[in-house]
């Protein structure tokens, strides 16, 4: 795990500025605090900030092939490197290190770009093939590791984080208004768009080749929900899933440093920790977040699992003020506006892991997407059920079974819920059915956009960009698979693995690993019959079946509680935050120009009175404040030390419980 950066001359020879290359690496130091490595020739400069996990002595980068004509910088891990190494040695390759990085170089020599198909891992890398004068950039299948790029002054500049790109003085820093429109609809930008104008991300499952001035971006992997033609019994599927998960967890525990695990109290992290305990020799060390606000707290379930597993455990307790206090630093790392504070507790958690002497954690992310865990999937199923007989008096009653964990459930007023879920079917492509209530509810918060921003955005639709992301013909899928595909292609990589994943973990040099996102597990789950992913309204049914003899019944059968954190209360519950007061002031809002100051002041008043109850107000206040923070940190004053210190609430951010 690390940070990478580079500058490539595209069509004219100009000196690659070593100082810029160095500064691009330095600002990524949180990703790689153990040391730097550089490569520079007439055409390209590469930088690497290292977090040592495998081959601690020998794994410094860049790493070269036998005759030093090809070099690589990698952010991430190749989990099947031991098997690949043996295979490549058999083929006659000579290794100079024991690192996982080096296998990519020799695989590339062997297979060229198709080396990607042999990798099991989470990665973003750059290979410079000097003889061919070819730069080859690639990103893992689901976008666990980030990679951004831009074109400026005849060069291609790329890096693990946008702030590293901004170390090049010639790059304009500007928020992209269309990105704001997308974030305030989908909770994310649609790749390759990012929050900043002319800054792009390489989409998950894609690679880029730049050769002789030509730049080509291609997709090499996409989840495909093709039903299994060789149908098996439920028990056989459950057994096969367990076997794959055990194998994936074992592979992902490969490291030359100790590996811990997150434990939320939900089924997914309970599965991962149980697999570590039962099927590996790794000592079980677990970490979790608890909340003072009981509406979000899952510590009762965490305690059950800790006792059940006999884990060596630490937790960090989050209060409203601990979230509000660290929020500016969180946004420094997310590099995008967000609509929920949920990344903040995970930022605090990664600090706890780091302070406990760990660099790597396994987590349960990805299970909800590939095994149908989210409410949005059940919600879509229920809507289809009601839609079949729209006049039925009884069918809508099933809505009552959604959201049992919410105090202000949107289904309490049943007739309103029916109307809410009955989004007009003519305005959008049919395959977006499942996600339209979410997107249309979120879009309501654009009421806060300034008139100027609204003018820019008028007559603009995102469905064209979205349809370029939806590269498979999902019209042929069953409804559940359509919904899962969209969730994987949008929120998984665009928010969950980035703002709530890589960015807040790497903020404290922590590498997250995700056994559910081993591509063999994903491909297996994509083939499962939909009825065993959600059985009636039981989510992740087949996972529960496969774990029924391994997990306590109280964990298996508990009501799913999605991970959330207090939103508006984190900023306004008796917690005076100078930065929030300043950034939400009429003068700051007017100066930035994105929002209508009068409307925001009414929302702030509502939040201060603790009357911001619904999703809309909470998403709006977090979205507005985080946008203003992005503006402050990256546009107005782009200097980490100055910006963060100015906004920092106190330096002793949190206590370990």
């Amino acid at each position, binding site marked *: 795990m690390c940070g990478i950066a580079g500058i490539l001359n595209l069509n004219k020879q100009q000196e690659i500025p070593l100082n810029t290359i160095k500064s691009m690496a330095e600002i990524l130091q949180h990703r790689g605090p153990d040391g730097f490595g550089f490569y520079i020739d007439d055409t390209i400069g590469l930088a690497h900030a290292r977090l040592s996990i495998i081959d601690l002595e020998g794994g410094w980068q860049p790493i070269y092939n036998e005759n030093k004509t090809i070099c690589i910088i990698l952010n991430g891990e190749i989990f099947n490197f031991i098997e690949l190494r043996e295979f490549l040695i058999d083929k006659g390759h000579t290794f100079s290190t024991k690192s996982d990085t080096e296998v990519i170089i020799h695989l590339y020599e062997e297979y060229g770009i198709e080396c990607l198909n042999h990798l099991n891992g989470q990665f973003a890398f750059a290979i410079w093939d000097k003889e061919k004068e070819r730069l080859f950039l690639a990103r893992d299948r689901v976008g666990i590791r980030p990679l951004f790029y831009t074109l400026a002054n005849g060069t291609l500049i790329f890096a693990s984080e946008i702030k590293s790109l901004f170390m090049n003085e010639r790059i304009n820093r500007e928020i992209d208004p269309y990105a704001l429109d997308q974030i305030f609809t989908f909770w994310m930008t649609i790749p390759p768009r990012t929050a900043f104008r002319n800054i792009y991300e390489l989409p998950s499952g894609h690679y880029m080749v730049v050769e002789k001035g030509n730049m080509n971006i291609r997709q090499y992997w996409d989840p495909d929900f093709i039903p299994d033609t060789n149908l098996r019994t439920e028990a056989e599927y459950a057994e096969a899933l367990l076997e794959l998960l055990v194998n994936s967890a074992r592979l992902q525990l490969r490291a030359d440093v100790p590996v811990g695990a997150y434990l939320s109290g939900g089924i997914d992290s309970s599965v991962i920790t149980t697999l570590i305990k039962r099927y590996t020799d790794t000592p079980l060390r677990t970490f979790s977040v608890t909340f003072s606000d009981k509406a979000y707290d899952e510590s009762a379930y965490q305690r059950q699992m800790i006792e059940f597993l006999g884990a060596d455990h630490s937790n960090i307790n989050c209060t409203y003020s601990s979230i509000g206090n660290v929020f500016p630093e969180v946004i420094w790392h997310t590099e995008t506006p967000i609509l929920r504070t949920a990344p903040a507790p995970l930022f605090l958690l990664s600090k706890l892991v780091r302070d406990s002497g760990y660099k790597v954690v396994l987590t349960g992310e990805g299970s909800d997407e590939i095994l149908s865990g989210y409410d949005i999937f059940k919600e879509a199923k229920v809507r289809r059920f009601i839609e079949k007989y729209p006049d039925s008096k009884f069918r809508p009653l099933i809505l009552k079974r959604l959201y049992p964990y919410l105090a202000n459930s949107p289904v309490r*007023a049943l007739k309103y819920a029916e109307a809410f879920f009955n989004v007009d079917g003519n305005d959008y492509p049919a395959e977006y059915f499942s996600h339209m209530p979410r997107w249309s509810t979120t879009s309501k918060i654009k009421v806060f956009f300034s008139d100027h921003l609204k003018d820019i955005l008028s007559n603009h639709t995102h469905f064209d960009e979205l349809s370029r992301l939806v590269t498979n013909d999902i019209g042929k899928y069953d409804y559940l698979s359509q919904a899962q595909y969209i969730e994987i292609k949008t929120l998984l990589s665009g928010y969950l693995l980035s703002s709530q994943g890589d960015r807040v973990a790497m903020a404290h040099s922590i590498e997250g690993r995700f056994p559910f996102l081993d591509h063999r597990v994903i491909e297996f789950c994509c083939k499962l019959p939909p009825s065993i992913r959600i059985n009636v309204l039981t989510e992740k049914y087949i996972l529960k079946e496969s774990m029924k003899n391994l997990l306590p019944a109280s964990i298996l059968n508990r009501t799913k509680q999605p991970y959330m954190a207090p939103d508006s209360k984190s900023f306004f519950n008796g917690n005076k935050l100078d930065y929030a007061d300043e950034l939400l002031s009429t003068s700051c809002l007017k100066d930035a120009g994105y929002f209508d100051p009068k409307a925001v002041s009414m929302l702030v008043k509502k939040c201060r009175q603790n009357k911001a109850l*619904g999703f809309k107000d909470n998403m709006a206040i977090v979205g507005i404040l985080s946008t203003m923070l992005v503006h402050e940190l990256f546009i107005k004053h782009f200097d980490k030390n100055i910006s963060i210190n100015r906004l920092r609430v106190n330096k002793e951010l949190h206590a370990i419980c």
Partner: protein
Amino acid sequence: MLTTTMQLKSEIRQFIVDNFLYGRDDDTLGDEVSFLGKGIIDSTGILELVSFIEEKYIISIDDEELIPDNFDSLNKISTFVFKKTTL
């Protein structure tokens, strides 16, 4: 003293403009405008409106009464609340 429907309507309008339109009433909030149709009040917003009405007019509203027929426009709400307060 009984509140008239006109007064009711004006007070409720103000609450909706402040809380759901955040002061941005661009003259779209006619008496007959459907809140759901215009996306002004969603299914959690309705609970905010209900708690305002219950507190302000000292009435209690059952879940069964939470239907668009009673709440989906200024006219409908003021008629419904007027009936409840005068019963």
